[in-house]
């Protein structure tokens, strides 16, 4: 970008940047697919009974998710900074490492080095426990999310129910983070978070009922498998097409649960100064920061599983890559929303949750029930 106004008239630089962009995207897809091939090769070693052993699956699935969510959460910050920067006519991190790839490493190193302050007036036990209590449940929820048909940490029959149960633990941790440090901004942020979480939990669950009813199961893999096949030979039988309203309700609700713009009132910088993280420094802060990104991945993963056919997709690209690509798509969509939208006010959030989304979700459930009753017989 030129510095002066005269240069601004030539914003179009020819097709080459776009070709490079497309080529980059193709390479990225190829890389993800290659990782998937390696995984499926590992999966094909040994007898099938070995892989079906719940212990093996649990350990491998958990390790995979831990790695993905841990590193992914860290690198998601970089992705977000880069992506937002591009939306905002600037470059984003690009000095430390090629394309700024070492930036998250530097951030992590620094945050580890930072002093961990517990204020005098704080309730030190609560303040220490809070990040763990808030962080652990959102990690636990990945156990029931299927990455591919094989790579699911725990293929439990009550998968979705388990997820719902676990997510509702997070507000406790956040409330502790609000109470512990004895700071009014923390408290305000935490109260806002809890109120928001409460208001959107119900529509979220109600919106889940649609896919569950179609699949007749609470199991993640079963829900995905129920979306296999095509209508008219080319439209995939994803739930998002017949249950469009349910999908929108779910999307909005999980966006509110993640607490990102336009629903980021719990950590609104200009109002409550980063809300419930205001008083935290060092590694405790990292955990609370990652909470948002883990929530983001979790919500996006759930959305993909419930509404976008999970790991299903035509064969040249394998299941692993399909899931990853869909996940990235949803995450980038949310980042785009974050880049251009405003923040709503607390009463508007409550209105939207209780007065619009909740009735809409109820009506949606009713329609799906009628529809299924008519067609399934």
């Amino acid at each position: 970008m030129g510095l002066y106004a005269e240069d601004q008239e030539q914003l179009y630089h020819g097709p080459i940047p776009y070709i490079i962009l497309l080529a980059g995207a193709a390479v990225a897809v190829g890389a993800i697919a290659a990782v998937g091939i390696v995984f499926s090769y590992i999966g094909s070693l040994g007898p099938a009974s070995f892989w079906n052993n719940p212990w093996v699956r649990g350990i491998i699935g958990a390790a995979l998710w831990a790695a993905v969510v841990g590193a992914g959460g860290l690198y998601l910050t970089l992705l977000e900074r880069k992506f937002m920067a591009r939306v905002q006519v600037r470059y984003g991190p690009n000095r430390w490492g090629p394309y700024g790839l070492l930036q998250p490493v530097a951030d992590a190193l620094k945050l580890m080095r930072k002093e961990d302050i517990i204020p005098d007036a704080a309730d030190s036990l609560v303040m220490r426990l809070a990040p763990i209590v808030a962080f652990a449940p959102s990690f636990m929820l990945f156990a029931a999310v299927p990455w591919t048909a094989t790579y699911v940490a725990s293929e439990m029959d009550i998968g979705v129910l388990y997820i719902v149960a676990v997510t509702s633990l997070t507000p406790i941790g956040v409330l502790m983070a609000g109470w512990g440090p004895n700071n009014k901004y923390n408290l305000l942020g935490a109260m806002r978070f809890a109120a928001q979480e409460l208001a959107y939990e119900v529509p979220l669950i109600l919106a889940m009922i649609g896919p569950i009813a179609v699949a007749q199961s609470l199991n993640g893999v079963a829900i995905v498998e129920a979306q296999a096949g095509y209508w008219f030979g080319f439209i995939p039988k994803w739930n998002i097409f017949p249950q469009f309203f349910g999908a929108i309700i779910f999307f909005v609700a999980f966006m509110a649960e993640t607490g990102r713009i336009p629903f980021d009132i719990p950590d609104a910088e200009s109002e409550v100064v980063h809300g419930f993280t205001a008083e935290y420094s060092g590694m405790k802060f990292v955990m609370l920061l990652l909470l948002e990104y883990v929530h983001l991945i979790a919500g996006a993963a759930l959305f993909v599983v419930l509404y976008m056919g999970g790991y299903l997709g035509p064969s040249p690209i394998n299941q692993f890559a399909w899931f990853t690509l869909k996940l990235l798509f949803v995450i980038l969509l949310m980042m785009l929303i974050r880049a251009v939208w405003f923040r709503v006010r607390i009463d508007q959030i409550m209105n939207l949750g209780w007065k619009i989304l909740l009735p809409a979700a109820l009506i949606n459930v009713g329609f799906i029930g009628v529809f299924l009753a008519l067609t399934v017989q």
Partner: protein
Amino acid sequence: MSADGSQTHVIFTKKDELLEVAQDEKKRKSFLAKVKRPAEYLINWGVKSSLWMYAWGLACCAIEMMAFGAARWDSDRYGIIARGTPRQADLMIVNGPITYMMAPRVKRLFNQMPQPRYVIAMGECAINGGPFWDSYSIVKGADKIIPVDVYIPGCPVNPEALLDGIIKLQDKILKGELAS
């Protein structure tokens, strides 16, 4: 990071020094400190590469600080982002005159920042009171109340100059010679 900034960077200059080091306890300790350097270097690199600045504004230079964060200069390239709470900030840029009324609060904000923390005095006002040097309500420089690592002259300081100052600070961090 010694308090007085007295560390040297050349390990040995003369042959006899090795012997001296072996005998003198003080020197032995400083030698050991140097051996620890690679780890320290790594951490210092991390610290210098992600300096989060405290998002506040005192006066005119704050606007230039904002410009430094905006699209043309884009501080994010260097990993510098603004945080609204001192608990998560590493770098306090004093961007304007400090009044006697504000001084205790500046000091408190500095104390609220976790270690390691750095201070840049941006502009004449933060260096010595600048154009308001003879006013009845201005503290004559930020270093009267908090330790300052880098001084950037200018009124106002251009974003380029601020960037230069920050790069100087990063060099200092990597070498481990700091005021605070």
